[in-house]
C-alpha cells in the first residue's frame, strides 16, 4: 500500500520536492523554536556585563585567527571538567554572544574560565611564541598581534550591528566606542572614568600588552581572554562546585 503510494509520488517531481521539505522541516522547528519560548533555557543573571568595545574587538580577533578550532569555551556538566576547569558553563554566559564560541575540539584546553587565571604578560609571551612558556605546546605563534595596530575607527559600527542582533548597547556606548577602546588600554587617560561608568566598575583597564603608546591587536585579544568567564558570577552561584568557597587560609 505504502509502496503504491510511493510509486505515485515518484512520478511527480513537485510532489517529491514538497514531501522532502515537509519531512525535513519538522526536526528543526521542534528543536529550535522552543528554545526561544521556554524561559528556563537561559538563566537569569542580573549582574551580566557587556563586552567593552576593546573586548569585542579582541573577540573578533579570536574568531579571525580561528582559536575556536582548538579551544572550547564550554565546560560540560561532567565532574572531571568541573574539577579541571571550574564551574560548568551556563547558557546565560553566552546570551550576548553572536556567534557563540563553544567550540567542538579541544586541541588546547578549555578557555571558558581562563580570565584572570594568568597575567597579561604571560598571555603576551604565550601568544607571541607559546613554546617559550610551554615547551610542550603545539599552539601556533601569533607574533604579528603585538606589531599590528588595532582598527578602532569603525567600532561604533560594530556595536551598532551588535545592537541590531539584540545586544543591549546604549546610544552612548555606540557613540563612544572608539574612545572607550582607547581608554581601556591606556589607564592614565581621561577616558577611563567613562569606560567604568558605561561598562561597570569591574571593567579591567590596563595596558594589556605592556605598552601604552600604541593600541595593538594584542591589547584587544588579551583584554578579551582576561574577561572570559568573568562577565557574570552566575556560574559560581549556581553550582555546588567546591572551587567556589572562597575561604581565607588559616
Amino acid at each position: 500500500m505504502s509502496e503504491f503510494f510511493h510509486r505515485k509520488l515518484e512520478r511527480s517531481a513537485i510532489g517529491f520536492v514538497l514531501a522532502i521539505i515537509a519531512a525535513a522541516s519538522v526536526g528543526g522547528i521542534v528543536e529550535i523554536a522552543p528554545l526561544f519560548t521556554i524561559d528556563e533555557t537561559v538563566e537569569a543573571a542580573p549582574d551580566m556585563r557587556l563586552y567593552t568595545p576593546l573586548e569585542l574587538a579582541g573577540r573578533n580577533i579570536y574568531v579571525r585567527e580561528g582559536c575556536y578550532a582548538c579551544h572550547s569555551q564550554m565546560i560540560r556538566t561532567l565532574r572531571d571538567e568541573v574539577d579541571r576547569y571550574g564551574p560548568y558553563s551556563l547558557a546565560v554566559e553566552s546570551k550576548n554572544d553572536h556567534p557563540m564560541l563553544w567550540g567542538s575540539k579541544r586541541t588546547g584546553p578549555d578557555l571558558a574560565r581562563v580570565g584572570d587565571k594568568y597575567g597579561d604578560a604571560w598571555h603576551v609571551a604565550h601568544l607571541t611564541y607559546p613554546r617559550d612558556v610551554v615547551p610542550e605546546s603545539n599552539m601556533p605563534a601569533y607574533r604579528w598581534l603585538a606589531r599590528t595596530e588595532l582598527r578602532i575607527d569603525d567600532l561604533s559600527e560594530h556595536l551598532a550591528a551588535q545592537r541590531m542582533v539584540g545586544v543591549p548597547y546604549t546610544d552612548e556606548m555606540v557613540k563612544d566606542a572608539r574612545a572607550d577602546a582607547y581608554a581601556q588600554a591606556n589607564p592614565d587617560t581621561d577616558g577611563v572614568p567613562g569606560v567604568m561608568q558605561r561598562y561597570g566598575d569591574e571593567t579591567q583597564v590596563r595596558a594589556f600588552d605592556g605598552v601604552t603608546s600604541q593600541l595593538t591587536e594584542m591589547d584587544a585579544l588579551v583584554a578579551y581572554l582576561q574577561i572570559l568567564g568573568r562577565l557574570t558570577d552566575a556560574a559560581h552561584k549556581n553550582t555546588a562546585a567546591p572551587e567556589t568557597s572562597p575561604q581565607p587560609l588559616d
Partner: protein
Amino acid sequence: MISTLTRTERFLALWISMAVSICGLALAIAGREDPLLIHGLLILLFGLVCSYIVMFGYEEKAPGTERLSLYYDEPIKAGVIFAMIWAVFGMFMGVWVAAQLAWPDLAFDAPWSGLGRLRPTHTTGVIFGFGGNALIATSFHVVQRTSRARLPDQLSSWFVLVGYNMYCLIAVSGYLLGITQSKEYAESEWYADIWLVLVWVTYFVLYIRTLARRKEPHIYVANWYFLAFILVVAILHIVNNLAVPVSLGHAKSYTVWPGVQDAMVQWWYGHNAVAFFLTSGFLGMLYYYLPVRAQRPIFSYRLSILSFWGITFFYMWAGSHHLHYTALPDWVQTLGMTFSIMLLVPSWASAGNALLTLNGAWHRVRDDATLRFMMIAAVFYGLSTFEGSFMAIRPVNSLSHYTDWTIGHVHAGALGWVALITFGSFYTLVPVLWKRRQMYSPALIEWHFWLALAGTLIYVFAMWNSGIIQGLMWRTYTEEDTLAYSFVDSLKAMWPYYVARAFGGLLFLIGAIICLYNILMTIRSPDKAESRDDVPHPADLALAGE
C-alpha cells in the same frame, strides 16, 4: 565551451559576468578600508575573466539544433577537473594542518599560515571544493541519464558550476585573509553566503526543469537523494547564515542567533551538512555508479524507500548530539540522541542495499579496483554511521566529544566514504564523458586504491587511539579521587599519533594526485571509443571499463 552556448546565452553570460564585475567593483569601493577590498577586487577580476572568455568565443559558430538530441556533458567535464584540483588543494592543506599539529613551527611568520586559518581552508576545500564539485558534476550526469532528458539549456549549468567555484574561491581565500564567521562549515561571510543562495536556487531550478522533461515515468532513487541534498542544503544554509553585516563596506557580520540558540542552529546546520552534503548527495552518486559498474540491479527498491525517507526525516533531529552535556537544555539532547539511534536503521539499510547489490558481482569487485573503491566506500559508510550513532549516546559522547575520536569519525566518513565513492564514480564516469575505452592506466587505479585504503586506515586508527587515550586521560582519577593527568600530559601523549596521521594523510594525498594524473592522461590519450552514451535513449549496459 562558449561554442556550445546559443547566441542568447552568450549575451546573457556576458551580461552576468559584467554584473558580477560591477558588484565586485562596488564591494571594493565600499570596503576600501577593510579586507573586503581584496574580495571586491577578486570578484571583479573573476567577472572580468569570465567576460573575457565569453567575448573571446562570442563570434564562434552557434550550435545547431542537433545539440538537443545529445546530452549536455561539457560542464560535467569541467566539474570533474575542478573537483580533482580542489581535492589536491584541500588534502594538501589537510596534510599541512596535520603536520603543524605534530610540528607546530611548520608555519610562516605570517597571519595566513596559522593553524586556525588553514584549518577551514582544508574543510572547505575538501567538502565544498572537492565534494561539492563532484556532486554537481555527477548530479548533472545522473539526472540526464536516468531521466533520458537533456539539461534544458546550456547556460544555467555553467552558471551553477562557475558560480559555485567562485563561492569556494571567495570562501577559502577569505579564511586566509582572516574573513570568517567562525561557524564550522559555514565560515564564509555574508556576501559569499548571499551569492551561494543565488547559485543554489539556480541549481535547484535547473534540476527540477530537467526532471520535468524526463522521459522516464518514475524518478530514480539517485535523484531523490540529489533533490534532498539540493533542497535541504538550501534551507540549512539560509537559516544558519542569517546575519547582520557591520556595514556594506565590511566583510564582517554578526549572526542573528544568540548564544545557546546559535549553538543549536549551528549544529542543526553542521550535522545536516554532513547528512545532506556528505551523505545524501553521495548516496545519489552511489545509487547510479555502483549498479552501473557492477552491472547488477539494485538489491531492493523497498529498502531504498525506507532508507531515503528515514534519512531525510531522522537526520534533521540529530544535530543536538553535538552539544551533549553543554548548556543546551537536556530535552533537546535527548531528542538528538534518540533520533541518532533510530537513524542507524536507514543508514545501515542503505549501506546494506549497496553491498547486497554486489551479490553476483563479487568477482568483479576482486578484479576491478574501481568497483572496489565503491565497495569499500559502502563499508566505511556503514562503519561511520554506526560509529556516529554510537558516539551520539550521551555517556559515549562524554568521552569522545572534544577529542580526536571525533576527528577519526569524521575521516572514516570523509576519506573512507565520501572520497572513495567519488574516486570510484570518477573512474567510471571519466571514460564515458571523454569517450575513451577505459582509464589511461588501470595499474594506477590499483595503486591509488591501496594508497587510499592504507592512508584511511592509518589515519582513522591513529585518531581512534589518540582520541580514546585523550578522553580517558582527561577523566582518569587517582585513588584519592583527584584528577590524575594535567592537560599537557595528554597533549604529550598525542604526539606519535599526530605523526602517524600526517603520514596516513600524505599517502591519501599521493593517491589523489595519481588520480588527477590518470584523469588528465585519459583525456589526452588518443584511444577514442565509439560514443555509446550521449544520446537520450535507453542505452544498454555496455559502459566503459569492462
